[in-house]
C-alpha cells in the first residue's frame, strides 16, 4: 500500500494500519448500532462519529476494531493523552537526516486520507485545544487543516471514526461544540454469562474449564451488584492464576487457592467478599422494587402482563443460584 502522499506540494509520510483484529463476542446489538452510525445512504449524507463509553476493560476499543473488521476497512488507532497537541493529532514535523523537515501524518489523518477507520482511544483525556483542531473533520466540512504543514486535508468519503471514553473519567475539557459532533453515545454494558464465558475462552483457550467457570460466576455476580469488575479484570486474574499454577510443577498449588490468590492480588481484598456486599444490599433495599426498563412505562413491576417480568424472574433465579454456587463449586473441586 502507498505509504506516502503528496498534498499541495507537501510530502506526507503515512502511518501504518493496525494489524491485530480480535473477535467481537456477544452483544450484537451494540455492534449493529455502531454500524448504523457509520452507514451513509447518499453521497451527500455524512456518517456519524459515535462516542463509545463504559467502564475500563469492557471492550470499547475491541468494539471499534470489530466494526472496522465488519466493514473490511483499514484500522488506525490513535491513543489520546492529556498532552496530545493538535500537531500530534494531525501532522507532525520531524527533522529528517538530511536536515530538512519531513511531515508525518498521524493515524487519524492517515485514516482520513486513505478512507480507513480511526479509533480515537481515551478521547476524554485530550484537551480542548486538540479537540478544536478536529471540529471541521467531524461536521459537513470533512477536512482538517494542518497549520504546521500549511495544508488542508480533505477526508476520503469512506473515512469513519469513533471515540472511546471512560465513563468515570472527567470530560470537562470537551466543550459542547465538540460534544455535539460526537453523537450518539453508545454505552457498553457488561456481557451476559454465556458471552462472558466465550470472551474468556477466546482470550485464554488454555485455561481450565473450572477456573473459567469460577471467574465467570464471580464476574456475573459482580455485575449484578453493579461493581466495576470488567472482563479484562477477569482475563488478567485468570492469567495470573494460570501462571501461579504452572510455576512449580513439583508442589502445585490447588486450583482454588491459586484462583483466590489471583482474585485478591489482581482485584483487591474487597473482591473476596462479594457475599457480604450482596447481603448488605438486599437488606437495605428491603421490599422495594428495583426499576427495570421500558416495560415499566406500561405496567406495574408485579403485573403478570409485564413483558420484562419473565426475564427478571430468570435473573433472580440466577442470582440465587450464584449464592448457592459456592457450595456447588466446592463439590466440583472435590
Amino acid at each position, binding site marked *: 500500500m502507498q505509504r506516502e502522499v503528496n498534498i499541495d506540494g507537501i510530502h506526507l509520510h503515512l502511518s501504518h494500519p493496525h494489524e491485530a483484529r480480535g473477535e467481537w463476542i456477544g452483544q450484537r446489538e451494540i455492534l449493529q448500532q455502531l454500524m448504523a452510525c457509520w*452507514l451513509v445512504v447518499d453521497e451527500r449524507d455524512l456518517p456519524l462519529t459515535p462516542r463509545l463509553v463504559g467502564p475500563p476493560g469492557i471492550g470499547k476499543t475491541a468494539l471499534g476494531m470489530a466494526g472496522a473488521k465488519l466493514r473490511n476497512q483499514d484500522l488506525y488507532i490513535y491513543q489520546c493523552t492529556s498532552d496530545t497537541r493538535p500537531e500530534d493529532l494531525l501532522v507532525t514535523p520531524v527533522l529528517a537526516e538530511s536536515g530538512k523537515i519531513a511531515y508525518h501524518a498521524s493515524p487519524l489523518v492517515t485514516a482520513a486520507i486513505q478512507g480507513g477507520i480511526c479509533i480515537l482511544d481515551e478521547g476524554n483525556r485530550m484537551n480542548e485545544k486538540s479537540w478544536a483542531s478536529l471540529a471541521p473533520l467531524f461536521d459537513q466540512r470533512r477536512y482538517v487543516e494542518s497549520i504546521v504543514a500549511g495544508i488542508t486535508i480533505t477526508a476520503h468519503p469512506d473515512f469513519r471514526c469513533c471515540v472511546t471514553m471512560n465513563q468515570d473519567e472527567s470530560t470537562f*475539557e470537551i*466543550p459542547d461544540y465538540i460534544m455535539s459532533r460526537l453523537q450518539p453515545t*453508545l454505552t457498553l454494558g457488561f456481557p451476559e454469562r454465556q458471552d462472558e464465558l466465550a470472551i474468556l475462552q477466546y482470550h485464554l483457550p488454555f485455561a481450565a474449564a473450572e477456573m473459567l467457570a469460577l471467574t465467570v460466576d464471580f464476574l456475573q455476580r459482580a455485575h449484578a451488584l453493579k461493581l466495576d469488575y470488567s472482563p479484562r479484570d477477569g482475563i488478567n486474574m485468570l492469567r495470573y492464576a494460570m501462571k501461579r499454577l504452572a510455576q512449580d510443577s513439583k508442589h502445585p498449588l490447588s486450583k482454588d487457592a491459586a484462583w483466590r490468590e489471583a482474585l485478591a492480588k489482581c482485584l483487591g481484598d474487597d473482591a473476596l467478599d462479594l457475599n457480604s456486599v450482596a447481603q448488605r444490599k438486599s437488606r437495605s433495599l428491603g421490599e*422495594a422494587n428495583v426499576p427495570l426498563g*421500558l416495560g415499566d*412505562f*406500561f405496567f406495574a413491576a408485579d403485573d403478570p402482563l409485564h413483558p420484562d417480568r419473565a*426475564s427478571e424472574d430468570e435473573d433472580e433465579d440466577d442470582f440465587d443460584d450464584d449464592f448457592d454456587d459456592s457450595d456447588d463449586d466446592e463439590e466440583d473441586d472435590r
Partner: protein
Amino acid sequence: MTNALHLSDRITLVPVLHGSGDFAIAVRRLMLEQSFDCLAVPLPPSFQPAVEQAIGQLPTPTAVLQKEQSDFFSAERNTPGEHSRCSYVPIDPCQAVIAALRSAIAEHLPRAFIDLETNRFEPPTAILPDAYALKKVSIEQFAAATLPSTRPPQSEQHHARIIHMAAQLRTLELKRQRILAICSLTDWPWLRNAYREKTKLVAEDDAVSDPETYAIDPATLIFLLGELPFITQLYERARAELEDDENLSIDGIKELLLVARDRYRADFKRRARKITPHLLKQCLKYLRNLSLVDGRLTPDLYNLIVATQQTCGDAFAVHVAETARDYELAKYTPFETIKCGISQARLPDKEIVELDNRLPGHPIVWRTLQLTRKPKKPEKEEWLMRWNPYSQCSWPPEDQQIETFRAHLFDRAKAVMGADLARTEPFTTSIMDGVDIRDTLRHWYEEKIYVKILPPSRGRLDCVVMLFDAPADPRDYPWRATWFAEHQEESTLAFFASDFSQEMVGPGIGLSTYGGAMFLFPPIHIPDIWTNRELDFTSTLEERLLAAACLHSSCPQIALLSASPPGAGWRRLAQRFGKKFVHLPLNQFSDATIQQLRMVHVLNGKQVRSYAEHFIRKA
C-alpha cells in the same frame, strides 16, 4: 388503476398491511377516487354488529373480543395453567380495514364480513415489508414486490379461510356491481387463485360466542394499536381538522420529538440539556440508520428510544417514551376497560387471556432497554413519608465527580494565573522547557531554534466558587448547608441548592440541584456560612458564598466559575478581604457535563448507598 387489483369486472381486491397508517390512507384515497357499492372485509360476520358499533366510538380505540368456546376437545387440549384464548379486532383508526369500514358506514355503503367463522383463530405469521414504501410506489407495485416472499397458507385453517372468502366474493358479486374487497397482503395471491380456480369449500363455519367490546387502559394502548399511540392521535387529529396526513409516519416522529422536547424543558427547566436542532438532526439521522440496519424504513418504539437515549440522554428518552405512549383523544365509553399486554390482556374480572389479532400486522418483538421511568406521585409521597429527617448523606460517585471537577478548576485557574508568564526565546545555552517547534518553523529563515520557558506558576489555590445560576432566585434554592469532608481527599463544601424533598427519585433518595457552591481544599473546619453573623452584611446567596470564600481562603486568589466575569461590586468585596478572583467562564465547559455536575442526590443514610445506583439516572 391497473388491472393488477381487479379480480373480476365487479371486484377490486386490495391487499393491505394491517396496522399501518399508510395503508389506511391509501385505502381511504381509493374509496374517494372510485365509487363502490359494497365493501367486503376479511372478518367473520359474527363480528359485524360489535365492530360497527365500536367504530362509532372512534377516536376512542376499543377492542372487540371473541372468546373461544370451550368444548370437550379444547378443554382437553388446554394444559392446566394455560390461559383461555380470545381472538380480537382492534378498533384502531390506523387499521386499513377499520378505516375502510368507517368510511363505508359514513357513506352508507353496504358492508360484507366475508371471513370464515373460526372458534380458535390461528393468526398467520409472515415477515412483511415496511408500509412506508407506499409513499414511493403504488399498492399494485408494493403487492407485486412482496409476491416472491409470500408463503402459501401454512395451516389448514388459513387455507380454509381463503377458500371461504373467495367463495363469499363469488356470491357477493351476483348481487353487487362494484365491490371493494380488502384482504391481507399475505392472502392476496392465494385468494386470487382460489377465486379463479373456484376451489371447493373445505370447512364450515364454527359455532362461536358473541363478541364483546372493551375499552383499553390508555397506558397499554401501544400494544393494541398498529402505530404508536401518539402517531395514531396525529392521524385522528388530521382527520378531524382536515389537515395533511400524507407523511405522518415520518413527520409524526419529528412532531413527537418536538412535543417531548417541550415537555422535557417544562419538566427540567433550566437544568434541561440543550436539545438543539442540530442535535435533533443527528438523532433523526441515527434513528434512520438504526431503522435501515434493522430492515425497516420507519422506526419502531425501541429504536426511537435507543436513538434519543444515546443522543439526548436518559431524561429526554423518558419523555419520548411517555409522549409516544400518549393518546389524548380517548373519551369515556360505555364499555368496561381491559389492560393489554403482548398478545395478552387482563379482563375486568382479572382473568388473563391470550389474544390473537384478527388483523395482524408486523409481529411484535419485545426488546427492553435500561430506562427508568419517572416515579409516580404516590410512590414519591410514600418515599417522602418514610424519609428519616435525622440522617442524610451524599452519593460517593457524585462526590468524586465534583471533586475531580474542583481539582480541574484549580488547574485551569493556575494556568490562567501563569499564562502571562510563559514565553519563547531563541536557543542560547539551555533547551529550557523544550523546543518550541512552532516558533522555530515560523522563524526558519533565521536558522535559529526557539525554546519554551514555562516558569512555575506563582501562588497556590485552596478555594473555588462555582456559580451555576446567577443571579439566583433564593426561592428556588431553599436548601443551604455547609458540609464537612468525610476524608482528607474531600473538600469542605458550602452550597445553596433546590429542595431535595420536592423530587424523590427512589426510596430514601432525593434529587437536588446546586445553584452555587464553594469548595475549600484541603478541608478545614469552618462555621456554617449560612448562619455565620460575620457574613450578614451580604444581600444575595452568591455574595454570601463569595464573602465566605474570601473569609476562609488562606490564598490571595480565589477561582470563580461563573457565566459572566465578576462585576465591580464583587471585585470590591474581594478587595475588602485583600483577595482577587480568577474568573473561569462557564461556557468553556460542556453544558451536558455541567448539568450533570449540578445534580446532587441526597441519600437517607449510608445504607441507601448500596442500592442507590439502581434509581439514579443523570439528565
